[in-house]
């Protein structure tokens, strides 16, 4: 599992030469993400345990971990959209 995305880079260029460059330091959210992830895993594990005891086993914990894995794999995603009036470039690092 990789680390979650650290930076989201957004470039917007308008038709009149106006340019906006947003450098979003997503890494500052990592501690909150860790907290939220930990909480979600704990709740999912508890639900799994209860459902297992009731004879209806589920894999919610694995699902939460899978969601976290998918989130971390968004690194390297790039979306570039250009039309007559605007150019938008979003990169996830």
């Amino acid at each position, binding site marked *: 599992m990789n680390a979650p995305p650290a930076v989201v880079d957004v470039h917007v260029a308008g038709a009149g030469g106006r340019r906006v460059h947003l450098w979003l330091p997503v890494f500052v959210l990592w501690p909150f993400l860790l907290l939220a992830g930990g909480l979600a895993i704990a709740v999912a594990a508890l639900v799994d345990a209860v459902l297992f005891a009731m004879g209806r086993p589920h894999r919610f914990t694995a699902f939460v971990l*899978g969601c976290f*894995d*998918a989130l*971390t794999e*968004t690194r390297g*995603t790039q979306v*570039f*959209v250009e*039309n*007559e009036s605007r150019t938008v470039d979003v990169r996830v690092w």
Partner: protein
Amino acid sequence: MGEERTRILSLVAEGKITAEEGSRLLDALEAHGTQTAAAEPPTRTGSTGAPKFMYVKVVSAEGDNVNVKIPLSLVRAGLKLTALIPPQAMEQINKQMADHGMAIDLANLKHEDIEELIESLREMEINVDSKNGDNVRVYCA
């Protein structure tokens, strides 16, 4: 390279060069051919290893461009996630997919299948050219 080889052989046959000289020339020609092949960059179809990204490129006739680069590890993680969807929800998803012409049971997707799928994406290339000049290209590299 075939032409040069024939020329050397004909020179030997005509007696203009000796067999030994001809052999040396052929060796030199082969060595040159190997070096040239090594210097060339690998072609997309000839390259090996799992592809890293999926590219979606859309160029419209009106001048709009869309380029999307998606890490295939994200596709892999998403596919793995489908195996963890609760059975009740999975039944509904499979039914909806079958209704739309995709009769795939996502619950049966195994880790090996996902890896094989990702690996074989290297050979995939979708090129769509519409009448009005729009072009859509999807490929992995």
